């Protein structure tokens, strides 16, 4: 749970869309909601690398790994395991 909370916080703080009513579920695709620009993408990858001390290799940079809170969580778990 704590992992998800951290990811969620990061997305909420950094996404370019912001609307009090724009809530997103853990399985909502944040890219399709138009949350993401180049800056956000880089920040997200850098955040994951620093916060969880993992290396995101080029092969890991697949949309699916980062498209939802759930997928990001699974990706991090697969890396630290």
């Amino acid at each position, binding site marked *: 749970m704590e992992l998800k909370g951290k990811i969620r916080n990061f997305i909420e703080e950094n996404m*370019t*869309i*912001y*609307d009090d009513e724009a809530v997103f579920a853990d399985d909502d695709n944040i*890219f*399709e909601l*138009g949350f*993401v*620009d*180049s*800056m*956000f*993408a*880089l920040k997200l*990858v850098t955040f994951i690398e620093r916060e969880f001390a993992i290396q995101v290799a*080029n092969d890991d*940079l*697949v*949309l699916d790994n*980062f498209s939802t809170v759930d997928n990001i969580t699974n990706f991090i778990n697969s890396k630290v395991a």
Partner: protein
Amino acid sequence: MGGNKKLKEIKCVVWDLDNTLWDGVLLESEKVTLKPAVIEIIKTLDSRGILHSIASKNNHEDAMRKIEEYGLAEYFLYPEINWNAKSSSLANIKENLNIGMDTILFIDDQAFEREEVSSVHEDITVWDAVNYQELLTHSRLNPKYITQDSQRRRSMYLEDLQRKVEEKSYEGPKEEFLATLEMKFIISEAQEEDLQRAEELTVRTNQLNATGRTFSYDELNTFRQSDRYKLLVCELTDKYGSYGKIGLALYEIFDDHWHLHLLLMSCRVMSRGVGTVVMTHLLQEAKTANVRFFADFVPTDRNRMMYITYKFANFKEVDTREDGSILMENDLSVIQPFPKYIDIKIISAEKDERIKVS
């Protein structure tokens, strides 16, 4: 470590003050005198689109008052006048201007300061103040073209400062702030008058640059007139003014696919959330034209952000060539929408028929 890499054009000259910009030491006496011709040098470089800043160990207020007396205050962006190590002052200037250390020239009369800066920033260029008169003639301070964008560069940075101040004081959510800027993103086919700026962009842009390929004016002009290529330029404006021509895309047209050779965005607009706008446009057009979409990517130590942009735009690696360049394809199944806070204008023009005749 790329030892034979060509030295980049200088984008900013960072001046020491005492015995560099002026003769004398301000702390010891108010009666310092500007070095001969220094005002002319600063103004001339400024008109070439080269920025100026200051790294000086002095009392900030006293030094700025002196600079204002000389009528030079508006020429220096993000001056660092304090008692910190100059290497950290230069790091701040680099950060604020968002340019590479390898495009900064630091000029100081003291060998100690020059060495301290070089020891921390190995890519920076340092000059002894005795050589300041050569600033005007040195090849790295003589850009090949002086475009409208380069002449306006300093005022564009000043407009940016104003935006930053307003952004900081804005209490609401970020998207709302971006919406208050009334941004317009204009994509058009390159005209002849765009080519100098287009060439300049290929030379100056490092971070948001997919292939790092540079093209000469003549090459770009050939692409522009050819039916096999499309050369697009992007301009961004907002309520404070124009950011100028800040993006470029070049793709080749085949019967069943398009091939993107070049895509770049100026670092100046990075924080404006416009990095993916032109990509969205290209993918939408390809989908409408019902063609496959390929793109080249050449990884460098500076352009990881662009790599991530491509991968997050759903490009997949198809092939890695021997020279390290990567061929990618986008299956056009997922296309990010345009950001809501930007007004997108697409101007398509017929290629100039007159030129083809000659």
